[in-house]
């Protein structure tokens, strides 16, 4: 009897201990950060340069692990199945917002709590330097005369190039051969070898090749010319109707399990706000042609909703969506 009582007491104390741990003293041990893309990629670089600044603010270690695969579904799935105690974070990119439309998974960022929308990358449509076209307009003219002949580098369904192509196709017609690579890196290599004709790329990956004169920018996906590539024409020059989609770009975000207690979300949000605002990290984003956002709470949720509605409907209009955004209850932009 006494033993049972003691066990009961121990369990109660233990439970109390856990509750007080999650509420008051968070964080009191290491936090795991799961990166949904592979080592050396853009999401990985952002996560690894940002984390040391956040560790200082939180006064604990954040152990980063890459869990790539399935357009990021694997990593997100892993975080959603961990306890909602703020000890597992997801470092993700924009892809989850398209999972439902592309039928990759039934969930998206609305099934998690956003901690910080770190920043947004710029997209440039690049071609090998020896091509005749100087801008997207030239490329579109060529493509209209030779439909289905140009080879576009892609990174698969739900990837950045496919999404940009869908957006273009929702306002114009660009009929291309879609050649799929494992990421921006292998795609740029194929561009340099002349095995494909053009590819929408994140500016971070393409910038060096453009500066060295080996690739040329046909357009940046923005309303105005950007500082990082002042000579590249904005996409609205060739396709004015694109304006309604802009500003648009891939983004990086940190999020946690949906049921995480508010106090922990607050602690994390504060730490990440400081980390992203760090001058060194801001410089890192700038060097990589990315725009810092540093959004939390409601602002972050609005950003995510807006991004999803713009992109999902562009995919739907171009006929690339597997499940209609209408069916999923995604509002029109």
């Amino acid at each position, binding site marked *: 009897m006494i033993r049972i009582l003691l066990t009961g007491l121990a369990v109660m104390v233990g439970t109390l201990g856990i509750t007080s741990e999650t509420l008051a003293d968070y964080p009191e041990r290491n936090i795991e950060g799961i990166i949904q893309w*592979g*080592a*050396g*990629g853009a999401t*990985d*670089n952002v996560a*690894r*340069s940002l*984390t*040391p600044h956040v560790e200082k603010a939180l006064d604990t270690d954040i152990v*980063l*692990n*890459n*869990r*790539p*695969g*399935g*357009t990021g*579904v*694997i990593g997100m*799935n*892993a975080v959603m199945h961990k306890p909602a105690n703020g000890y597992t974070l997801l470092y993700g990119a924009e892809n989850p917002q398209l999972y439902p439309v*592309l039928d*990759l*998974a039934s969930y998206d960022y609305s099934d998690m709590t956003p901690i910080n929308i770190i920043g947004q990358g710029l997209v440039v449509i690049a071609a090998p330097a020896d091509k005749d076209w100087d801008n997207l307009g030239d490329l579109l003219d060529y493509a209209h005369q030779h439909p*289905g*002949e140009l*080879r576009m580098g*892609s990174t*698969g*369904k*739900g990837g950045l190039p496919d999404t940009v192509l869908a957006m273009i196709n929702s306002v114009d017609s660009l009929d291309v*051969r*879609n*050649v*799929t*690579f*494992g990421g921006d*890196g*292998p795609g*740029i*290599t*194929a561009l*340099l*070898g002349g*095995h*494909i004709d053009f590819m929408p790329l994140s500016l*971070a990956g393409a*910038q*060096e*090749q453009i*500066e*060295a004169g*080996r690739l040329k920018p046909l357009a940046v996906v923005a309303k105005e010319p950007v500082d990082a590539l002042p000579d590249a024409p904005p996409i609205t020059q060739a396709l004015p109707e694109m304006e309604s989609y802009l500003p648009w770009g891939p983004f990086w975000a940190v999020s946690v399990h949906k049921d995480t207690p508010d106090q922990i979300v607050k602690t994390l949000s504060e730490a990440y706000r400081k980390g992203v605002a760090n001058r060194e990290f801001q*410089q*890192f984003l700038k*060097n*990589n042609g990315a725009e810092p956002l540093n959004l939390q709470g409601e602002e972050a949720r609005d950003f995510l909703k807006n991004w999803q509605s713009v992109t999902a409907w562009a995919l739907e209009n171009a006929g690339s969506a597997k499940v209609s955004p209408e069916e999923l209850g995604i509002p029109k932009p």
Partner: protein
Amino acid sequence: MPETVSYFLMAWTDPSLLLLTAAGTLAGIYVGALPGLSVTMATSILISFTFAWDINQALALIVGIYCGGVYGGSRTAILLNIPGAPSAVATSFDGYPLAQRGEVGQAIGLSTVMSVIGGLIGVLVLASVAPFLAEMSLQFAPRDYFLIAGLGLLLVGSLSAQSLARGIFAAALGGVIGLIGLDPVTAEPRFTLGFTNLMGGIHYVVVMIGMFGVAEALFQLHQLNAETVRQKVDRIVPSLNLVLKFLPLSIRTSIIGVIVGALPGTGGDIASLFAYDHAKRSVKNPAQPFGKGAYEGLVAPETANNAAVGGAYVPMLTLGMPGDAVTAIIIGALVIHGLNPGPMLMIQTPHIFWFTVGNLVLANLFLLIFGLTGIRIFARIVELPRAILIPTIMVLCVVGTYSLNSSMTEVYWMLGFGLVGYFMKIYGFQMGPVILGVILGPLMDKSYRQAMSSVGNDGTAFLLDLVTNPLSLILTSAVILLLLSNTPLRRVLSRRSR
């Protein structure tokens, strides 16, 4: 020129850089030797640590880990028949038979010297013709990677020992395992049976640890009470004569290694298999037959995979494009440190190139020192009673697999592959072809579809491309020659000409 020399010697003269290179190499040997712990993982973890360091220090440590890690994979391959990394799979074919004959000392000694020779040839190529080799590697179109994968799959003839039919079955099994996961083009789940955990596919290291590690451990249970082989450890450093004898072969296989390593789509794992095949074809009368402990079968993959390190740096340093997963992470490190890896890297920061070259040479020298010391202790491992050795292997396999992605699912898969591998072993199947299939299947799938979509899914245009482009023509001819030389047709022809 004097600047070049001073850049080259930077890591040699700065004590902290010297120490970091040494520490990296030593750590790399052990990281590489443990199956599941990979150089890729070690470097990506290190990036976080080296964030506040000077970039040269970070690079020195990574160079050491990279060289040590690629070499370290051979340790467990020779000692336990469990390759520490995919690029050491071919090393186990003849390395483990050598251990069973009591020649662990000689095998490790020879593989160390040969790894260093391969590594140095790789650096030499990097230092002399990097820009040329990089431009050449860009010429490889998707269809050429398709042909390389085809050429690689034909190696099944070399890897399947007695029964070619069993070899082909094993390679096909590997190919199918490699296709599991989201389709890279349409993102359609393939063979995932609705499991989210299968959407990312099955990591080939999981298959490798199961099929080599667990299957081998289970297989050894049959001889639980058999006497362990006494190891001869008196002569560890191979004689100069022996090294000179293998020098022509090691130069040829190093060149295979450096070229395959420089291609952005292929790396040391494929290079070492090609090298093994080359040795098997070109060496007519080895002292021991291949697969039974031929020194040549050890020399070829070990030189090739270390030469591939120099190769992988070629596109990275000249173009800013990764040659493999490790150089991809190094590019990430450069970005985080505020450098701009790209074609201008050699112009904007010229010291990086010669610093890396000098650092690689230094790491190879440390490899020689660390590799040749402590072999006697390693030889003891093989002499351990099986009742101790087998459980230890099992634990290592589980820990190694878990550390890959911290995923229990992968541990279950690994154990499952261990069971399948065990029964395959009993029925005379080889494990090499399975790994060949897992590595090459996805490469072939990807490159075939890239090549087909590049020509608008026109089969005729695709076939025409294979014979009209000079580079593709060479590869196509190699595929056809290899096929013919393996079929009865050749015997018929040569009989007729006689």
